[in-house]
């Protein structure tokens, strides 16, 4: 029901001609997303020169403009939940060590926990080939010129994965700190990698990708000293942008911090309730 006039019209753009022309004219827009959100009206402001501006306050709109991907992501999320698959979206800039960390992780985990990988790159099968010796099923998506994975690409790739015993799905996104931030893939958690060679202030420069991350993993800690990287400064920046994120530090090369990383994954698996 429209809060402004009490009418039951389902037409989101219905115009009511008021007694004093213009002033009472308004339209109805369904609020999006939240079950309890009230229907919020658009309304018109007539100006003396005869023009009319239509607008609404707050976030009532026909639908958000990124809606197409969001719907596909919501479907993926349901699918993962129904199949008991914990999906993690791994994002970072190019060369932060996603593939190397995944390789090490799969070597440790896959013998015990069913893992699989969907990996996105602009070109080549190189990452998939690097990961296949671990024995985990790997699907490579080559995106061509597209700088991020979207929810539909992931759905198509997951359909090609063997599902038997699959519990943990790593989605290795295209190396890019900008575009992947805008595309929910339906994952349970986004995990951002930040290499010590990138500098401590990356979170402040790229807030959308860091905000809301479940964890930020500082990689290549063996290079922190030569790179002049100060972990405490990075922690501060992460806390400013993503206060909820857990911060882990590791080196895939010398093995430092890998136990903590694996324990973290184990904790996520324990906490993952497919019925929840």
């Amino acid at each position, binding site marked *: 029901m429209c809060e402004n006039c009490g009418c039951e019209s389902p037409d989101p753009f219905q115009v009511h001609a008021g007694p004093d022309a213009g002033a009472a004219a308004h339209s109805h827009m369904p609020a999006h997303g939240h079950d309890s959100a009230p229907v919020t009206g658009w309304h018109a402001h007539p100006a003396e020169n005869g023009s*009319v501006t239509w607008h609404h306050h707050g976030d009532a709109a026909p639908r958000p403009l990124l809606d197409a991907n969001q719907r596909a992501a919501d479907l993926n999320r349901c699918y993962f939940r129904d199949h008991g698959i914990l999906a993690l979206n791994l994002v970072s800039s190019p060369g932060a060590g996603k593939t190397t960390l995944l390789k090490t992780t799969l070597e440790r985990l896959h013998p015990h926990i069913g893992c699989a990988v969907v990996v996105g790159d602009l070109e080549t099968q190189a990452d998939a080939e690097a990961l296949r010796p671990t024995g985990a099923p790997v699907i490579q998506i080559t995106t061509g010129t597209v700088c991020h994975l979207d929810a539909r690409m992931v759905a198509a790739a997951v359909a090609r994965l063997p599902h038997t015993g699959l519990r943990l799905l790593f989605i290795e996104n295209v190396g890019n700190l900008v575009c992947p931030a805008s595309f929910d893939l339906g994952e349970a958690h986004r995990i951002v990698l930040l290499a010590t060679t990138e500098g401590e202030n990356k979170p402040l420069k790229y807030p*959308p990708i860091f905000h809301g991350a479940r964890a930020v993993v500082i990689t290549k800690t063996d290079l922190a000293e030569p790179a002049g990287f100060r972990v405490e400064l990075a922690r*501060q920046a992460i806390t400013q942008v993503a206060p909820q994120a857990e911060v882990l530090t590791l080196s895939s090369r010398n093995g430092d911090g890998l136990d903590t990383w694996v324990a973290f994954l184990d904790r996520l698996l324990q906490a993952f309730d497919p019925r929840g």
Partner: protein
Amino acid sequence: MHEVSICEALLDQLTSLAAQQGWPRLRRVWVRLGLLSGVVPDALEFAFAAMATGTPAEGAELLLENEPGHFDCAVCGELELERMDFTCPQCGGALQLLRAGRDLWLSGVEPMPS
């Protein structure tokens, strides 16, 4: 660079809105964006100008408004800012980003007066 697909969605909405309301042309269009939308305003404006040709929004002015995000300052408490900033405008201290919108919405239109 996903401004093109955003622009397609925007033009779809504008075209059906204009058809419903019988507006042949639009003069101004407002879009509200969350601080975490990741949209580059210049790129969106460029896409809009190029893609609106042949639609009721052809030649319309696109106005972008930022939806404020919520920040926390250890000294001043919670505050709303319309731009991404990690320095408190009141005391100069460090800010924490509590929450901000990721999406963007058509928030207003002005039809060309007939």
